Structure formats: structure tokens, C-alpha cells
């Protein structure tokens, strides 16, 4: 059984016991334990079920590479699926539940899949479930989905918070093992600004576990000294529990810092995502041990040799009482020795190498450990945990020589450098035949903005395995107590000649249930590219991203294709190194801070007075002011009628306002607008149209000439930044010799439209020093002065067809002016009105609306706006485009008014079918509605639309479609429905 040892455990604090729950059972652990070590301490061997066959699964590793031990963790707003037991530290009150089984971990219905295993090889679903057709969607797919999927679905809103942090350094060192520490020390001493990230809680990596001596002192001591030296340097920053999750172009790196995951106290941000810009990145990410491929290598109790060692040395737990070590290299002998010294039984070391190990073998044998050379495991015995192994010749086909009883198997197939970060931006690898590993090729490093390499590797990440070599690679010459190791012998299948039966039980990818036989099948069927094999078998696509399985898998593939491993190559390494929380990626940008809301100075008043908000770009505008008991629709109608009968106020502050000034400003505006703006008189206003270079309408608004060399251009809401940028683009990149300055002063002013027959009365009630009389202040002009106590500029323009003014005051005075207008207007029946009323008011007048009548494919001519297109100008932006055949065609749909015969409202987006069908069998069409409303003024549905030859078809009745398939009849009429002669706005 697995248990807590009486002593040892460098990471746990036996004075600080903690209690946690596993599947409802109470378990004990110590501070410093990982979930995995704590579960072993409680003899919990089986931790989950595999993806496809629902095979029993146990912990195989001790770090980020763990494929099996994933749990549903936490409760309610802190529930999270797929938490990795080997990287999650335990804390008091932690609760976890095992995954992917029903009804229980011990008895799982899904396990029947195992019986059919031989009929469920890689890609079986591509060959089955083809007939009958409906069955895929309704029968097969639901079944497959249910049996897959691992963890449960979070049900409640996340209660934790997250944040981001930008950090800049000369050198980023990734990894707090001896290589990383040494590299950081070197760079720090060279005066560089250094950041070192270690994903786990502690430093020292493997060396401290292996108990190496460096220059006479223990690795432990060496690490502590080096850390102390680093912490003493002001230019060096060292962070633990912070994983470099990805390397991105131009030296950008994400650091995933876990702040409270290991604590009972969850206050403060849970994760902090570091956005690091590093001049250079050194990855000292070490190496990961590889499993061996033998039958039953997935049974709980079969672990990586180094992991078994870690559990004893770091956490003081033994995985089993009797451990058989199976290996193709010397390092695993260390495990045997550690176990033996811990008083545990090691019945045998099974070494696949006929020549066996180097000097370390003698050490093991001295401790009484039996070493079998040239031998292999034919098969592991046991169902939910190991009970023994059958031994055979590595060279043979698996005929059993002897059986050894044991409850743990510690395997080592050699080591693979962690090259993920090196590879994210295209760092290339070389295959090292002797060490049987892919190593970074410094001559083909990822290159940055300057074309130079910006990532390098040190230590085991470069493929060095002895402590001396590792530190040498980091620039340190040291003496160690390590004995020379005998060369490893690549072993990709155990035994070498294993037949189909065994290969079907030899696992490569534990989580996704990919076996040796699956990869061989892929090869046989022509999925020869390693990328095809990956996608066909799902090898390496599980949550561990193949940290254990990829190399073994592609070795099997290369054998099957008899191509060399480098020729087969690896799959692409992609971020993140291990999965990172979506919460961390989101950071603080959630709820109120999800996106900026742009608020006008009158926002609070609107909000307090029934505003039904409408997002317009990032602005919030009032759609309508809804009074108690009123529907939004009622409110809109009330607001409209009140504008027609009395007076209304609209918050128009969001309209863009751009100052254009300079000797060439007139010339510039003539290019920008379709109209002639240079001839506009000072003090006058003119409605203008802007097109893009493609000829399509992009914006409109009133242009005001403030002075001889100064214009004020109004744009649509949300048009402000776009149009200002557009102006600057032309001034900087095309006409840079023109003398024009622009300034976007949109937010400097609060603007209020005061519209309705009583508009003038209302403004006059406020008093001030401006002549607002019909004569003194004619239509399409502006005045400037005091309106009551306000510093106002008033434009006499109308978008509603009523007598109307747009009052502009400094934003700081906006709220006060708005309040003053409501107050002064009480007896005039003033009411605020919102964007929907504004839309309908303008529609009743046949005014077009950018975004309704236009959609990015409409040219001014389509909307009969020729009057706004200057004939005198030889050029303006969009003119040439409008000369193209399709734009000049007389068959383009043109703007008309529409009046339903039955008074009903034409549905939004409705089209006008034409006789017949096109070659693709689609109904021909001859027009569509662009704006359609119920007009409370006219008490009927009104609409505008664009119709083929529309203006020539006045009076004709056409039909619009409805979603239910019926049609609405409407008469083509003049778009101006209300006050055709414009008398009302000129009073």
C-alpha cells in the first residue's frame, strides 16, 4: 500500500496538518503536500477514469506532466474541473471529487467500453455510424459526447478576482532549478535586469531531490545560498508559483502566477497574469522523464521512476511497499537506492540494457537490490492497482521468464528536455541519437524584431543530464559527487518483439487512451504525417498535451514507417505550457470593467429618470424615458407627440465635434465632403456627406464655419474617433504639405437638442444675451453668448422637422443646463426624448440615418442626395469610385417612401420580391425596407426603403415579405411624410 513515511519529506511541514475531502471522505495531509502526495499518504491509489475506455487511473508523475490525476475541485463559485493533483497544493478545507465515471469511481458503467476496446481502435468513429444518417446526430454522437468530457461543468458565477501586470526586463529566466538559478546569477552579476520564474512553490528542481553535492556542499545548501545571493541583488526579481505559459513574438511572455490556489484564505486576486517583455529569454525548464511502453503500463501503481523518488524525498510518502524499477538508463537506479534507504523493498531493477548500468549498479547491488540485465516487463498484473510484473527478455516477444510480486512499478524510458517555450516562436530541434532526445538547436533559434535569436536554453532544457554538465552549460564549472552514467539504450517498445495482444495494452497517452497499436494503425492506414497521426489517434491532445506520450508515440510511428525519428519530426508546440485559467486571461475586465462605458455629462439624470439604455458604440444613450406603468413603446410615442406639440430635449452630446483649422482647411474639407464646404459663409451651417474611397456613404453631419480659417465638423455618434482618424490619415499620409490642424473636441461640449413649437419660448425663458428671434437667428446659422448663466453656442438646425436648436455648452455645465431646461420648461410641457423618438421624428421627415438607410454599400446617389454632391468639384473622396459601371448603373435601388395600405408597420429588414427566380433558384428581389416605424404623428406605419427604379414608380403598390410567409402591400410615396414644405422648422 502507499503510505506516509515516518521521516523524510523536505517540502512538508509535519507541524502543520491540514484536512481535505476526497469524494466526501476526510483525508489528512500536511502543509507543503500536493494533492497527489496527500492522496498517496492516504493510500488512495485510484484517482480517476480514462477518457475513452474508462480504465482505472492512478498518479504517474509528480509535476506538470501528470496526465491522470485530474479532479473536480471546490464548490459553488469556486468549483473548477480538471485540477491537476500533482501541481495543486493541499490546504485546509479543500474538497475534490474524481472525474469521468458514473455512478462511482470504483464502479463505473463506462468501463464496459473496455470490453469493446478491440473494436474501438483509433478513428473507429470515422468508419462507423455512417448509416442510417439521422443516427449520428441523435444516437451515436450523444453517446460519444457523454462518455467523453472529463470534468463537470461549473454552475455558478466565478467569485474570485484576477488581474494583469506588465513587466519589462533585460533577461527572463524560466525555471528555478540549478540551471535557472545559475543563469540568473550570471546575468544578475552582469548588471542586467533579471526576472526568474519558477512554476512550483520551491526551488532547486531535480538536483535537490537527487541529493547531488556541488563543490562539496549539498545541492540543497547550494540552492539556498544562490537564492540568497539573487535576493540580495536589486536588479534581480525571483517569483515562485509563477509559470511562463507561453513565449510570443518580439519577446512577449505570459507569466501565470497563482496567488491563492494554495491557501484557505482566498481574499485578493486569485491569479495574476504577467505580460512580460524580455530582451532575452533563457529557458531552464529542465527535462521530463519518459514512460516505457509495456503491457499494463497504465495500471495504477505504475509511475515514472523520478516521480516515485520525488514522493519519498519531497513529501515523505511511499507509493508502494515493494517497487520494481524498470529502466533503460542509470537515473532510475537512484530511485531504487532512495527507496531502499527509506527501508522499502525493491525486489528488482529490470534494466533493458544487456550491458546494464555504470558504477551506480554496484551501489544498488551493495544495498542488496537484484539487477536483471537485458530484461523487460512483459505485462503488469493487477486491475485497479499493481499486484506484480511478468518478466521477459527485452530482445524477445514476451515469453515470461518469471513473475515478481510488487505493488509499485517505477519506470524510466529516458528524458526529454522541456522545449515547449523554445519552440513556441519557431525554435528548431535536433535529434540526439545517443541520448535519444530532441535538443534545441541554438543555430536555429526563434528570432525577434531585430532578426536575432531571443530565446536560449540552459541545463537539462538543453539536453544536459549530469549536474556538472548542466551547470557548465549555465556558465559554472563545478565539481560534483555524481558517478559517470552508462549510455542509455532507446527502448520504444517493451519487449522489442511484443505482439498485437501486448501492443494493444501498451499505453502511450494515458488520458486519451492511445496505445502503441493505435499509432501503428494510423501508420498502416496512411496517416503518415505526425500531424495526421496526432489528429487520427488524438495522441498528445489531452490536457497534458503529450508531455509523456509524444516522443514515445512518434518513435513508434517512425518505426512503423521505418523512417528516422527526425524525419518524422514533432507536432507543433503551442501555448500554454500547461492550461491557464480563463479568469486570468480576462483579468479585471469583467462586470463593470468588462468594457469602458462612455457616459455623457447628463448620464446620471437620465439614469434617475427612467432611461431605457441603448448601447451605441461604447456610449450609452437613452432609447426612451419610460414612466411608471408605461411600455417602452408608449414612452416613445409620448415623446414624439410632445415634440410635435410642445417641446422636447435630446441629449446629443455624443455627436462628434471636430475642429478643422488652417489656410488649407477649406480645400481639405472640399476633398472630405461631397459638398462644397470652402464656400460656406462664416456663421453658417451646412449638412454634409462623407464617403469612403470606395464611394460608399460613411458619415454625415452639420458643418459650421466658425471663422475664416476654422470649421467645426459634426459627425455621427461613434463617428467622432473614426472620422478624426480619417482626417489625420489624409493630412499625414497624402496631403502632408497642406496647412491644416484638426482637434477632436467631442467631449468638451455637452449638446442638447431643444425641439418643438415651444423651443424658442423655452430658451428665451432661460434668458441671456442672444437674439433668438426668427429674424435675428435664421435657420442654418449659429449664435454664441450667454444662455442664462451658461456659456452657450446655439445652432439653429433641425433633425426633427420642428423649430429646433442645438445648444452646446462646456461639458462641465451640461448637467446643470439640462436640469435648468427641464425646470424652466415645466409649464411648456417639456419632456426629454430618446434616440428612438429621434429616429422616428426624422423618419417622418424623410431624413436619412447613417446605419439605417446606409449599410456600407450605399452611395449618396442611391438616396437621391445628388443635391449634396457638388458638381463644381473635380474631386472628392469617393468621386472616382462612384463613376464605376456598377455604381453608375440606372438599375441601382433608390430611396423612396413607403405607405402600407392597411396602415400596419412593415417588418424590419423586409424585402420586395420580384417575379421569377435566379439561376440559383432564389426568388428575385427588387428592393428592401431601410427604416420602418409606427408614426404616432400620422397614426400609421411609415417606412423608407430602396427600390429598383423606385423614384419613377411613385404610387405603385409593391409587396414586402413577413417572417410568417405572408405579404404586406405598400404604396411607393415621397419619403417626406410630415410637413412637406418645411414650414414648421422655419417659424
Amino acid at each position, binding site marked *: 500500500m502507499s503510505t506516509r513515511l515516518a521521516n523524510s519529506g523536505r517540502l512538508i511541514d509535519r507541524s502543520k496538518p491540514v484536512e481535505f475531502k476526497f469524494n466526501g471522505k476526510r483525508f489528512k495531509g500536511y502543509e507543503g503536500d500536493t494533492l497527489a502526495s496527500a492522496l498517496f499518504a492516504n493510500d488512495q491509489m485510484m484517482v480517476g477514469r480514462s477518457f475513452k475506455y474508462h480504465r482505472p487511473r492512478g498518479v504517474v508523475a509528480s509535476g506538470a506532466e501528470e496526465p491522470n490525476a485530474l479532479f473536480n475541485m471546490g464548490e459553488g463559485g469556486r468549483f473548477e474541473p480538471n485540477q491537476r493533483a500533482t501541481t495543486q497544493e493541499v490546504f485546509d478545507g479543500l474538497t475534490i471529487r474524481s472525474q469521468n465515471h458514473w455512478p462511482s469511481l470504483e464502479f463505473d458503467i463506462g468501463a464496459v467500453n473496455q470490453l469493446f476496446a478491440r473494436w474501438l481502435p483509433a478513428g473507429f468513429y470515422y468508419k462507423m455510424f455512417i448509416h442510417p444518417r439521422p443516427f449520428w446526430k441523435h444516437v451515436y454522437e450523444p453517446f460519444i459526447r457523454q462518455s467523453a468530457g472529463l470534468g463537470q461543468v461549473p454552475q455558478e458565477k466565478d467569485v474570485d478576482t484576477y488581474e494583469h501586470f506588465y513587466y519589462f526586463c533585460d533577461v527572463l529566466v524560466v525555471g528555478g532549478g540549478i540551471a535557472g538559478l545559475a543563469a540568473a546569477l550570471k546575468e544578475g552579476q552582469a548588471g542586467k535586469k533579471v526576472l526568474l520564474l519558477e512554476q512550483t512553490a520551491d526551488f532547486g528542481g531535480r538536483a535537490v531531490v537527487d541529493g547531488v553535492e556541488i563543490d562539496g556542499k549539498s545541492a540543497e545548501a547550494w540552492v539556498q545560498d544562490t537564492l540568497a545571493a539573487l535576493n540580495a541583488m536589486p536588479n534581480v526579481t525571483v517569483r515562485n508559483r509563477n509559470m511562463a505559459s507561453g513565449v510570443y513574438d518580439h519577446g512577449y511572455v505570459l507569466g501565470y502566477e497563482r496567488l491563492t490556489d494554495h491557501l484557505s484564505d482566498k481574499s485578493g486576486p486569485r491569479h495574476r497574469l504577467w505580460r512580460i517583455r524580455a530582451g532575452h529569454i533563457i529557458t531552464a525548464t529542465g527535462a521530463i522523464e519518459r514512460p516505457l511502453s509495456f503491457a499494463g503500463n497504465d495500471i495504477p501503481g505504475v509511475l515514472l521512476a523520478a516521480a516515485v523518488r520525488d514522493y519519498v524525498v519531497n513529501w515523505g510518502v511511499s507509493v508502494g511497499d515493494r517497487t520494481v524499477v524498470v529502466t533503460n538508463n542509470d537515473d532510475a537506479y537512484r530511485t531504487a537506492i532512495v527507496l531502499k534507504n527509506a527501508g522499502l523493498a525493491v525486489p528488482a531493477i529490470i534494466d533493458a540494457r544487456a550491458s546494464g548500468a555504470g558504477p551506480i549498479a554496484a551501489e544498488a547491488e551493495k544495498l542488496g537490490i537484484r539487477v536483471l540485465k537485458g530484461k523487460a516487463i512483459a505485462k503488469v498484473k493487477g486491475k485497479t492497482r499493481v499486484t506484480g510484473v511478468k518478466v521477459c527478455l527485452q530482445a524477445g516477444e514476451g515469453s515470461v521468464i518469471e513473475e515478481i510480486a510488487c505493488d509499485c512499478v517505477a519506470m524510466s524510458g529516458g528524458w526529454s528536455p522541456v522545449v515547449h517555450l523554445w519552440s513556441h516562436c519557431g525554435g528548431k530541434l535536433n535529434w540526439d541519437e545517443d541520448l535519444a532526445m530532441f535538443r534545441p538547436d541554438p543555430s536555429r533559434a526563434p528570432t525577434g524584431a531585430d532578426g536575432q535569436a531571443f530565446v536560449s536554453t540552459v541545463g537539462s532544457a538543453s539536453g544536459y543530464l549530469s549536474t556538472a554538465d548542466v551547470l557548465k552549460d549555465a556558465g559554472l564549472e563545478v565539481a560534483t559527487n555524481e558517478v559517470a552514467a552508462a549510455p542509455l539504450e532507446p527502448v520504444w517498445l517493451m519487449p522489442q518483439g511484443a505482439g498485437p495482444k501486448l501492443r494493444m495494452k501498451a499505453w502511450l497517452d494515458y488520458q486519451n487512451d492511445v496505445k502503441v497499436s493505435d499509432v501503428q494503425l494510423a501508420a498502416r492506414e496512411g496517416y503518415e*504525417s505526425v500531424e495526421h497521426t496526432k489528429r*487520427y489517434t488524438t495522441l498528445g491532445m489531452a490536457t497534458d498535451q503529450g508531455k509523456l506520450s509524444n516522443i514515445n508515440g512518434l518513435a513508434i510511428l517512425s518505426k512503423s514507417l521505418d523512417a528516422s525519428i527526425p524525419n518524422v519530426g514533432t507536432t507543433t508546440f503551442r501555448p500554454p505550457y500547461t*492550461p491557464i485559467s*480563463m479568469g486570468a486571461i480576462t483579468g479585471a475586465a469583467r462586470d*463593470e470593467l468588462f468594457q469602458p462605458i462612455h457616459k455623457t455629462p447628463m448620464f446620471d439624470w437620465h439614469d434617475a429618470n427612467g432611461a431605457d439604455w441603448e448601447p451605441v458604440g461604447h456610449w450609452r444613450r437613452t432609447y426612451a424615458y419610460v414612466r411608471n406603468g408605461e411600455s417602452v413603446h408608449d414612452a416613445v410615442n409620448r415623446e414624439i407627440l410632445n415634440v410635435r406639440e410642445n417641446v422636447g430635449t435630446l441629449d446629443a452630446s455624443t455627436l462628434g465635434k471636430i475642429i478643422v483649422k488652417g489656410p488649407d482647411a477649406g480645400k481639405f474639407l472640399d476633398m472630405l465632403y461631397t459638398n462644397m464646404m470652402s464656400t460656406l459663409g462664416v456663421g453658417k451651417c451646412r449638412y454634409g456627406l462623407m464617403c469612403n474611397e470606395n*464611394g460608399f456613404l460613411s458619415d454625415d453631419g452639420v458643418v459650421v464655419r466658425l471663422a475664416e480659417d476654422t470649421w467645426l465638423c459634426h459627425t455621427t455618434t461613434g463617428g467622432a474617433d473614426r472620422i478624426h482618424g480619417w482626417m489625420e490619415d489624409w493630412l499625414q499620409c497624402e496631403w502632408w504639405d497642406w496647412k491644416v490642424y484638426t482637434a477632436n473636441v467631442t467631449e468638451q461640449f455637452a449638446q442638447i437638442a431643444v425641439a418643438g413649437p415651444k423651443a424658442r419660448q423655452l430658451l428665451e425663458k432661460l434668458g441671456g444675451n442672444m437674439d433668438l428671434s426668427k429674424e435675428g437667428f435664421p435657420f442654418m446659422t449659429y449664435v454664441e453668448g450667454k444662455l442664462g448663466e451658461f456659456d452657450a453656442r446655439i445652432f439653429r438646425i433641425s433633425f426633427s422637422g420642428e423649430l429646433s436648436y442645438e445648444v452646446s455648452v462646456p461639458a462641465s455645465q451640461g448637467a446643470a443646463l439640462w436640469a435648468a431646461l427641464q425646470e424652466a420648461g415645466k409649464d411648456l410641457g417639456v419632456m426629454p426624448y430618446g434616440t428612438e423618438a429621434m429616429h422616428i421624428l426624422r423618419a417622418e421627415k424623410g431624413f436619412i440615418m447613417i446605419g439605417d438607410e446606409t449599410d456600407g454599400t450605399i452611395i449618396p446617389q442611391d438616396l437621391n442626395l445628388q443635391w449634396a454632391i457638388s458638381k463644381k468639384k473635380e474631386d472628392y473622396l469617393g468621386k472616382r469610385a462612384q463613376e464605376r459601371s456598377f455604381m453608375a448603373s440606372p438599375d441601382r435601388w433608390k430611396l423612396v417612401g413607403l405607405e402600407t395600405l392597411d396602415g400596419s408597420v412593415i417588418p*424590419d429588414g423586409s424585402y420586395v420580391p420580384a417575379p421569377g427566380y435566379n439561376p440559383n433558384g432564389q426568388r428575385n428581389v427588387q428592393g428592401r425596407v431601410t427604416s420602418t416605424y409606427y408614426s404616432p404623428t400620422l397614426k400609421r406605419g411609415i417606412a423608407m426603403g430602396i427600390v429598383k427604379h423606385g423614384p419613377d414608380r411613385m404610387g405603385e403598390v409593391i409587396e414586402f415579405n413577413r417572417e410568417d410567409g405572408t405579404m404586406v402591400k405598400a404604396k411607393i410615396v415621397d419619403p417626406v411624410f410630415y410637413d412637406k414644405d418645411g414650414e414648421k422648422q422655419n417659424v
Partner: protein
Amino acid sequence: MRRYSVFAVAREGLRYHTGWERAWRSPQPKKKYDVIIVGAGGHGLATAYYLGKNYGITNVAIIEKGWLGGGNTGRNTTIIRSNYLQDPSAAIYDKALKLYENLSQDLNYNVMFSPRGLIMLAQTHHEVRGYQRTVMANQLQGVATEWVTPEQLKKLVPIINIHGPRYPVMGGLYQKRGGTARHDAVAWGYARACSDMGMDVIQQCEVKGVRTEGGKVVGVSTTKGDIDCDKLGMVVAGHTSVLAEMAGFRLPIESVALQALVSEPIKPCMDVVVMANTVHGYMSQSDKGEMVIGGGTDSFNNYTQRGSFHHIEETVRALVETFPMVSRLKMLRQWGGIVDMTGDRSPILSKTPVDGIFVNCGWGTGGFKAIPGSGWAMAELMATGHSPLTQEFDMFRFREGKFIDESVAAGVAH
């Protein structure tokens, strides 16, 4: 070809699946073919397949510089729908959808087409009008789509938050027939069928030059030598400009990176595809359980298949807002592809200035769903010189200003 069926699998199971034959041959190039298709992505393979199936043209080579299906076909988020606004788009995408509905049977390869339904959220009044316009247009195009209320939508997608403080869901455009398919299987199924018709799928063979004589194509030069042909189809997506340059003309195309990501797998929780375009994110759940997530493109020309992280951020932010549970999932993997964006964001299926060269490109961020229809139409164009389905997608439309703009009605790509 050995047909795939449950019986075949059963038989093979008994002999450890040692009897399966190759899904496709890996031949050496011949000296000459009637037709060469450059690019063994979905569109290239489908074009070849229908050339053979519909027109009996089987002396065809599909030349692929990498591994077949390794381009965007092998890295897309597999959204399939045909509820497009403009007639030419609706026509070709719906043709594709109809073919998808029988593709597994047609190819005798389960492409796992899953018509689980697709919803586009309307989160502003403008979007509501835009999608209602789409519903109306689709009705006349013979494409069944419907408008769903927030309440209906919540029933279809229990994990969604329709009362988001920022952009409450005001309804949605729902296409029941929309859904997903297994992207790799689409490429593999077509490749297997093409190979079975005697066509050569030639992988690891890069086209380096296009050879023409007197304004007519005569062949290509590749890393496996020169290969002659009478007709050449360029179907290389992100690399279209590179191929066009070899043939001496330019196209209205820019190549930019589009990214996607998957979460760790979880139990089934969303049986429909949801697109939230106001906030730039969309999500579906694969049969393996990962949430498959995508968003907007990068803005600069790029051939690296790597994108910029801030787009991933924007997308994840959007989805956490729309589906609060996403916050406690983890990102398992992110990747990018190089998409070919045209001047009006609609594809180009067209003859070119060079006699005998045809181009099928510009599918940008949304061409997976079009693969069968595009192949069908492209085959017709290459075989007969004309196809009603491709007519409007002619490359010369840009000269006349005759665009096919899908972005107009709050419409979007994927």
C-alpha cells in the same frame, strides 16, 4: 476500395485491425495531368472530387506543400451555417450545407456532420434589425432561418447569461440546420475518395513556380520537379498572393492571422453553436468536450500561423461576459492560421488573367462551411467554363464596384 462499415470494423477487430488498407495512396507525380489543383485543403480536395464525380475528369493531381488538410481546414473552429445575407453567398453556402447533410454517406467516411443548430446573438437594436433583415432575405433565398426570443434562446443555451449588464441578449438568429463537422475528417474523407478515383494526392510537394506559354498555363514547377497540366486550380487560401505572383497577376487579398483556442474538456453543456458578434466571440463544444472558441483576426499581414495574444484576450473576455462559467475553465491550447481576406470579405471563384488558371480563394475566416459547395461550383467552372454559383464571385467584380458585402447587416464571417 474497402468500404467502411460497422461490419468491416467488427471483422478487423478480430484480427487486431491488421487488414485495413491505406486511406489514400502516396504516389510520385506523373509527367502530366489534365488538371492540377494546388492545395490539398478542403476546397482543393473537394474541387478535385467533384471534377471526378460530376464530370468524369480523374486525371487530376492535388499538390500539397505540407500534409493534406494541414492548412486552415485543419485548424478551423468548424462552424457550419448558410444563413448569409447576400444572394450569391446564401446560394453557395446553402449548396454546401445540403451536400454536408449527406457527405458521410457520399464519401463513406464519417465526417461527423452535426446539425446541432447555430445561434447568432443580437445584443444591440442595430443587430436586431440586421438579423431580422437576414431572416427576411433567407426566406426568399429558400434558406430556413428563424428569429428566437431571449427566453427561447435561454432554453436552447442554458449556460448563457441573457441579462448581461452590458449587452443584454435581445434575441437571436437561429439556423436549426447549422452546426459543426469534424474538420480533419472532411479533408481525409475527400482525399480518400479522390485517391480511390485514381487521382494523385501528392503531399510534401511545394509549388515553386507556374509555367505559362503565350498567356496560357502549361504546368507548375515543384520541389518534386516540373509537372505539366492543361488546367490549373489555385486553392491555397492564405498563400494565394504568393501563387498569383508566380503566375504574374495580383489579387485583392491580404493574408492575416486568425486565432482560435480550446478549453480543457468538460461534460456536455452546450448542444448548439453560439456566436456573439457585438463582443467578438463564439463558442461550441466538441464531441471530446472542449469548448472550441474563436474571435476576430489580427490586423497586420502575417504568414506565421501565430497571432497576437490580445485578440485571444478580447475573445475570452467576451465569452466570460456571455457565459460566466467560462471563467473557471482553462485554456488548453491556442493556435492560429493564415486567412485570405478579400476587398469585400467574400470569396473569389474565378477565371484569371492567365488562360487555364482558375482561382478559388478568399474564404477568409469562414470557408470551412463552404467546402462541398465551393468544390462543386469550382469543378463546374473549371470543367465547363461557367457556373451560376461562382458567377458573382468573379475576381473582376472589384473593378466594377460590384461587391458582395456580408458585413452589412451585422453579418459576420465564421
